């Protein structure tokens, strides 16, 4: 029987290429479901899912919540801003309190890398990582690779460049793992200060010149500059960043091929990419958002299938 090799989705690093393929083929069917007049299936009607967001999130939380509701799961939401975390409660205590209310799956975003791994070892529920610090954001990488596959047919031999703030990005790390497992070549591009020092050890190419990177690639995934994670200045000014690493229509027209533009959102229009590029037919940004719900439905469905039913 087709099953995931893991019990929790903690990161792409732990997944096999077959796991990723299974999630993608399952998402194909959920994508059809969410385009029906009635966008709901009863699969998870006896599963309760807690969304624990210890860090701000709008679209990931919305996307997970929609995915859960379209699978008919019961959903409880928790965000750190209104919680006892501020009163000094530990992570395990917070989560155990929620689990005492009989929760089967925990979807968690946390500012500390490895929070999901830690939790999976100490509590009796399945964990889906919705972003842990600058470590991994597995569902984003799954939906990014799915969206590329949808546009280009396959990832085998494709060239993908990830542009921007690689240092603070969990999207970058998860994407590198995922794309490589699916047979794509990966390059990172950005200011030298925002490229982690040993990133070449992951088998990725590094390019500091944006034009050369775009000329090389089939797909450019533009990351947001994460000002909130920057404790010091990594580049002189936003204006200078835009001049060096902003993608404009003119720059795309100067290439001798048409590349696909992606962005995990939220977009800083006029910084990473101009409005003209974001709204062009080369951009698949809104496809990414739609695919996000289908991918998260597939992940939750496959993770839930491994929870044995108790009579």
């Amino acid at each position: 029987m087709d099953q995931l090799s893991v019990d929790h989705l903690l990161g792409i690093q732990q997944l096999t290429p077959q796991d990723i393929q299974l999630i993608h083929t399952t998402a194909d069917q959920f994508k059809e479901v969410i385009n029906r007049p009635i966008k709901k299936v009863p699969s998870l009607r006896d599963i309760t899912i807690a969304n624990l967001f210890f860090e701000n999130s709008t679209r990931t939380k919305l996307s997970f919540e929609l995915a859960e509701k379209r699978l008919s799961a019961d959903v409880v939401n928790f965000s750190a801003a209104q919680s006892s975390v501020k009163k000094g409660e530990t992570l395990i205590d917070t989560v155990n309190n929620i689990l005492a209310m009989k929760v089967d799956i925990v979807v968690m975003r946390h500012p500390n890398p490895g929070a999901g791994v830690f939790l999976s070892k100490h509590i009796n529920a399945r964990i889906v990582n919705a972003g842990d610090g600058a470590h991994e954001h597995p569902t984003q990488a799954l939906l990014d690779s799915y969206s590329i596959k949808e546009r280009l047919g396959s990832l085998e031999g494709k060239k993908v460049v990830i542009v921007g703030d690689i240092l603070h990005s969990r999207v970058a790390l998860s994407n590198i793992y995922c794309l490589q497992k699916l047979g794509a070549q990966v390059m990172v591009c950005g200011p030298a200060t925002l490229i982690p020092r040993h990133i070449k050890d992951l088998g990725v190419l590094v390019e500091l010149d944006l034009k050369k990177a775009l000329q090389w690639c089939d797909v450019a995934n533009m990351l947001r500059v994460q000002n909130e994670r920057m404790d010091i200045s990594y580049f002189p000014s936003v204006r200078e960043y835009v001049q060096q690493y902003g993608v404009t229509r003119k720059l795309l027209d100067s290439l001798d091929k048409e590349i696909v533009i992606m962005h995990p959102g939220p977009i800083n229009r006029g910084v990473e990419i101009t409005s003209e590029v974001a709204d062009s037919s080369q951009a698949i940004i809104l496809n990414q958002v739609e695919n996000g719900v289908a991918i998260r439905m597939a992940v939750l469905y496959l993770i839930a299938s491994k929870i044995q039913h108790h009579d």
Partner: protein
Amino acid sequence: MPESNTLYLYALPASMSQKILLNAAQIDIILHRLACQLIENHNDFKSTALIGIQPRGTYLLNRLKKMLVENYDVSNLKTGLLDITFYRDDFRRGDQPLRANSTEINFVVENMNVVIVDDVLYTGRSIRAALTALQSFGRPNTIELLTLVDRRFSRHLPIQPDYNGRQVDALGNQKVKVSWVENAGEDAVYLIKTED
């Protein structure tokens, strides 16, 4: 005396592991009969849709469709494929198939006469799931069920076929296997005794 289209197989010798229930010629006759029965009830198929259950009902659906169009001049026949994986009632209960097949219903079934097509009717649970799944595509006027093989006396739910190829009385440890030229190189229905 048993009815003419019923097979009684209680006394199969233990050594026999596979027995042919229907050969290609018999299947062809049955398909023609089923096609004619559909025409009798659905006239010009104007507001009728045939929906095959994934994965195995699709072969039967395609055969019936071909026959209706080529041998009986039915035009504008609406057909679709329905996958019931996400509607099954045995999710998280053992070895149920998890990988879904595609659903291809490019029309709304509101006020239509739907005929669900599947190869073997056994417990009825797949058809129960299909009835729930169909609700996502609108409110049909009627829903009927067409099967090639009906394993009667094996039902878990009050579900019966409206159009039926052959009734079979098979034991719980026996399996009815339908082969098609398209997937196995021959048209045949076998009764297989499984080891248990």
